[in-house]
């Protein structure tokens, strides 16, 4: 009997992926990501988490290996997805990069890129849930860090991406903003069955939001497991040491 998580369809499949920067090399021998799951990436700084995220968003090509997404395979030699595939993926980075325009223009920017009509009724729940209703006319340059990150998340969600990649989006935010963002992302994943990959340095956050958790260290995957398993009885000794705080970074 398959668990609920295992029964979900595969969105990404990575095989033999290598990204070599000389002094640092990321190797992913095998990794599958599923639809509707929140996949948390844990690991020390420099482990390769952000590099993996850039690969998943096709922002950087691997040196070798292949990646399958939504049934289409992309080899390292031809790592250029069709625009409609590229437009089903997005990343929210740690430092929100907003256009020097009003908040509303930032939020609807992805729709304009896609020449989609701006459906206010569809956007309003996202805006309200993220507490942005009162600042839509404000210039983005005047926002606080928490507001800017909520705008960045709203902008990422308005076009209902099939894949949402989060590169430490709540680092340096206060608990209230963290709670808003976590709530939004978890409900989005459940409602849209999108694949969420969430880089975090916060084990408690991974426990709160993750379905599966992956530990990366020195460019290699140490362990991938359900959060229940990884936080109670990890398979790998390095994972145990990391979670106990024995690996300093």
């Amino acid at each position, binding site marked *: 009997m398959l668990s609920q998580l295992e029964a979900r369809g595969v969105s990404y499949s990575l095989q033999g992926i290598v990204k070599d920067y000389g002094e640092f090399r990321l190797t992913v021998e095998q990794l599958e990501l599923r639809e509707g799951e929140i996949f948390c990436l844990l690991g020390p700084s420099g482990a390769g988490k952000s590099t993996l995220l850039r690969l998943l*968003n096709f*922002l950087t090509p691997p040196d070798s290996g292949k990646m399958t997404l939504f049934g289409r395979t992309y080899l390292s030699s031809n790592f250029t997805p069709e*625009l409609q595939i*590229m*437009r089903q*993926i*997005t*990343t929210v*980075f740690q*430092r929100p*990069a*907003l*256009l*020097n325009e*009003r908040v509303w223009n930032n939020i609807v*920017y*992805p729709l304009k*890129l*896609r020449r989609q009509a701006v459906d206010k009724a569809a956007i309003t729940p996202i805006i309200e849930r993220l507490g942005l209703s009162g600042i839509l006319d404000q*210039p983005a*340059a*005047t926002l606080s860090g928490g507001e800017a990150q909520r705008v*960045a998340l709203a*902008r*990422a969600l308005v*076009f209902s991406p099939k894949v949402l*990649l989060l590169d430490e989006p709540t680092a340096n935010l206060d608990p209230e903003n963290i709670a808003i963002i976590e709530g939004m992302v978890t409900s989005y994943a459940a409602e849209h069955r999108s694949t969420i990959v969430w880089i975090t340095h916060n084990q408690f956050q991974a426990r709160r939001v993750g379905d599966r958790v992956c530990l990366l260290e020195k460019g290699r995957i140490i362990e991938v497991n359900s959060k229940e398993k990884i936080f109670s009885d990890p398979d790998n000794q390095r994972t145990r040491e990391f979670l106990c705080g024995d690996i300093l970074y």
Partner: protein
Amino acid sequence: MGAISDGFFESIRLLFSLDPYIYDIIAVSLRVSGIALFLSTLIGVPLGALLALSRFRGKQVVTALLYTGMGFPPVVVGLFVFLFLSASGPLGSLRWLFTVKAMITAQTIIAFPLVAGFTMAAVASVDRNLLRQLRALGATKLQASWAAIREARVGVLVAIIAGFGGVISEVGAVMLVGGNIEGRTRVLTTAIVLETRKGNFGVAIAFGIVLLLITFITNLAMLYLQKRQLLEEE
């Protein structure tokens, strides 16, 4: 001192006299520099953005050439345009020499490196993280480039104004390729040279005032746009 004050009062009288000689020259000046600026913007803004945002073989050479172009003496540009358009030159068959077209060509060559160079600097200062974010949101390279130009709009505007300043006040190139023909290719700067040599200081000062006014109004418009931009950001 008397010649200056006499010339100044004479210039005021001329400006309000609606003399067609004066207004024809103003019209030719604005037409030549306006079209040259339009063409320079069409070439210079995309070129500057391309140099700022992309990496390709020979980029440093192109950049060095552009910087050279920014400091190129206009009269030398005029000389080359003259040689190319003269009857024995490679483009002599166009018969553009001593026409407005030749002047527009020369002024475009003078202005586009300025527009491209300043645009390049402005676009290069746009946050790289923003460009990466736009790509991650599904922007094509062209859409991301356009967004970068929009982000650098104040700098791009300054680039265009710098191009305009470079051509409206330029005399050597238009004199060489236009020939300063009354009613056809005479512009404000060449008219000032001519009228001064003839001792018509009043007319020369009148043209000088108009030239200053055009530059002043252009800068005022730029400041207004910059201020509006700053107010939007506040």
